[in-house]
């Protein structure tokens, strides 16, 4: 495997080709370009595996904490999407922006936010990445330029489009990446956002994580055009699809997409993944057959990628053991940290309604009266 510097893969020329190809919307070409011999070196491959294993162990730990009632609310996991996440984020610069949805733990830690702070957020503690105010669905970190996970399906799309607008307004050269699920392509915000981005030439990469299901509803039952990346044609937007079980393929396709966006050509990238478990931790996924689940296990992207690296001699058993062990430690350390972190003080309840203090803001606890009881006025008092 050619060990080429990653930067080289983002030359305008290459990306332009990618774009033109995609714009013709000819699937095979896109597929080929995505599957073309990758330019990532062995170190990067190991980095991918390490990050994937971190996501895997983190999510497994989160699931356990949830069943122990240490985590509340909804909890959506990235199990099965590890390869997609690491490939996507590797193609971004530190200065680029990321918007995601409620299925985001893996994005947060891969983007470089310390797992302790992500787990603490799940536990609702002050050391959480959103100080405990957001929880699983709402992680935000300015330094990592993760501008939020959002719980309303499609809600992140107009916001990311606007971030692209701000970048363009300032003539700076960051790129915005925003991820969404397959089911999200059927909501109005998808249409309005992509049209605006294409119309105004905004530096945004729209990523569809196609895990084939909404909650229990399959793509063909929700999207009249199930080849989702093709929907870019309604906006004359470049697009491509890629196998999300292969981090290098995802990285290559994303590199093309990001380069395109950086040249003010927004891009729609569809990443084919699998959701290994239920929609959220509480979903037993009864709607799936035993065979299906068997298949999923067999094609588990983390195991598959590990096998590949072992076969290619990029990874040896010892190193793998070390990495896996290190990932397990990361996860249990994160849980330990989270459990030790204190809950936010109730006295802070009214600190985040407004960024600018404002007179007459209602800072009333449910038990408090609107007006303190007064002495009954005497006739004179009137």
């Amino acid at each position, binding site marked *: 495997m050619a060990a080429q510097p990653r930067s080289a893969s983002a030359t305008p020329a290459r990306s332009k080709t990618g774009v033109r190809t995609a714009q013709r919307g000819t699937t095979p070409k896109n597929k080929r370009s995505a599957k073309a011999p990758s330019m990532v070196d062995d170190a990067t491959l190991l980095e991918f595996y390490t990050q994937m294993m971190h996501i895997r162990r983190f999510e497994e730990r989160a699931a356990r904490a949830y069943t122990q009632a240490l985590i*509340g*609310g*909804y909890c959506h996991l990235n199990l099965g999407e590890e390869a997609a996440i690491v490939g996507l984020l590797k193609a971004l610069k530190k200065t680029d922006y990321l918007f995601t949805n409620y299925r985001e733990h893996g994005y947060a830690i891969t983007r470089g936010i310390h797992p302790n702070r992500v787990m603490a957020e799940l536990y*609702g*503690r002050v050391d*959480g990445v*959103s100080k*405990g*105010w*957001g*929880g699983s*669905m*709402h992680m935000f970190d300015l330094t990592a330029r993760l501008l939020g996970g*959002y*719980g*309303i*399906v*499609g*809600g992140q799309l107009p916001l990311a489009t606007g971030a692209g607008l701000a970048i363009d307004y300032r003539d700076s050269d960051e790129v915005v990446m925003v991820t969404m699920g397959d*089911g*999200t392509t*059927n*909501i*109005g915000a998808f249409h309005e956002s992509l049209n605006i981005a294409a119309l105004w030439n905004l530096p945004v990469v729209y990523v569809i994580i196609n895990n084939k299901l*909404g*909650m*229990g*509803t399959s793509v063909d*039952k*929700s*999207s009249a055009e199930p080849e989702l990346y093709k929907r870019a044609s309604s906006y004359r937007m470049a697009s491509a699809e890629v196998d999300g079980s292969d981090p290098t393929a995802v990285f290559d396709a994303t590199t093309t997409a990001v380069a395109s966006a950086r040249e003010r050509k927004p891009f729609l990238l569809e990443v084919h993944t699998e959701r290994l478990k239920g*929609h959220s931790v509480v979903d037993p996924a009864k*709607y799936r057959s035993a065979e299906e689940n068997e298949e999923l296990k067999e094609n588990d992207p983390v195991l598959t990628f590990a096998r590949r690296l072992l076969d290619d001699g990029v990874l040896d058993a010892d190193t793998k053991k070390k990495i896996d062990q290190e990932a397990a430690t990361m996860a249990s350390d994160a849980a330990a940290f989270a459990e030790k972190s204190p*809950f*936010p003080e*109730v006295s*802070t*309840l*009214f600190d*985040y*309604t407004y960024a600018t203090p404002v007179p007459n*803001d*209602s*800072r*009333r*606890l*449910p*038990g408090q*009266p*609107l*007006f303190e*009881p007064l002495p*009954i006025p005497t006739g004179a008092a009137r």
Partner: protein
Amino acid sequence: MSIITYRQALHDTLRAEMLRDEKVFAIGEEIGIFEGSYKITAGLLKEFGPKRVRDTPIAEEGFTGAAIGAAMLGLRPVVEIMTINFSLLALDQIVNAAAKIYGMFGGQSKVPMVIRTPGGGGQQLGATHSQNIELYYAFVPGLKVVAPSTPADAKALLLAAIRDDDPVLFLENLALYNTKGEVPDDDTPAQIGKAAVARPGKDLTLIGYSRTAYEAREVAQRLAESDGLDIEVIDLRSLRPLDRPTIVESVKKTHAAVVLEDDWLTYGVGAEIAATISDGAFDYLDAPVRRVAMAEVPLPYSKPLETAALPSEDDIIAAIRQTLDAVGRRR
């Protein structure tokens, strides 16, 4: 007469109405294969097939609007919006189509449909998934808004809503789905627009709807036992139309009122109840009407913060005691 959960009552009633009337069908996200986020529609796809139980894309505006259009042609859709938070995306269709079509066209087209959706809070779902925005519907002429607090009312009001020729917003509540209660076997629909005196009393009127009406009954019972207080509980049942006479009559008798709501206090549903009482029972009221509501913040995820922001049983009891104090000081 049988004792079942609020969830079961909804499921059984929806099923019975679908068996009774070919024109009734269920439509919404994940109500079929997934059997509903809160399982109200469990089993219905198997029994009625995909035409009567229609899984939709994630497109609240599109499928709610489609249900309105189908109702214009005489069908009786029962829409499920997964939680009331997501209904914001369908609000234009509900307010500008469903609520307007009958009047705006001079009474030529009815819109016989039901929109079922749960409110909630207290489940650590965070700021965007824990809102109680029934106000947005209760405010709109042309809509009817009902909010059952018991399994029996869940049945009687769902029957009424499905058989009504106007669009009805049917408010459910996540915290009520597992509550149990007696449900009569007969199919007598409730009368939309009528409140119920859930518990007669003379010392103070405690008013609630949906989950807070359940709270109100619990608290009244508890205070009867602990303090021998005789509290009258009013379950609004219908937010639009609002049964002002029942509310005012009660306060004319008790001379004091506390209103419970799960939404934000300022401009919340309770504001209208308090204003109504303060007007209609002006000369009978011996203390200000007290409202117990959520703290006015984007609801935090973290448990202690969320708990602090939501009204507790102790908050309600404190409000009642303080109100009775205030009455005492004026008598």
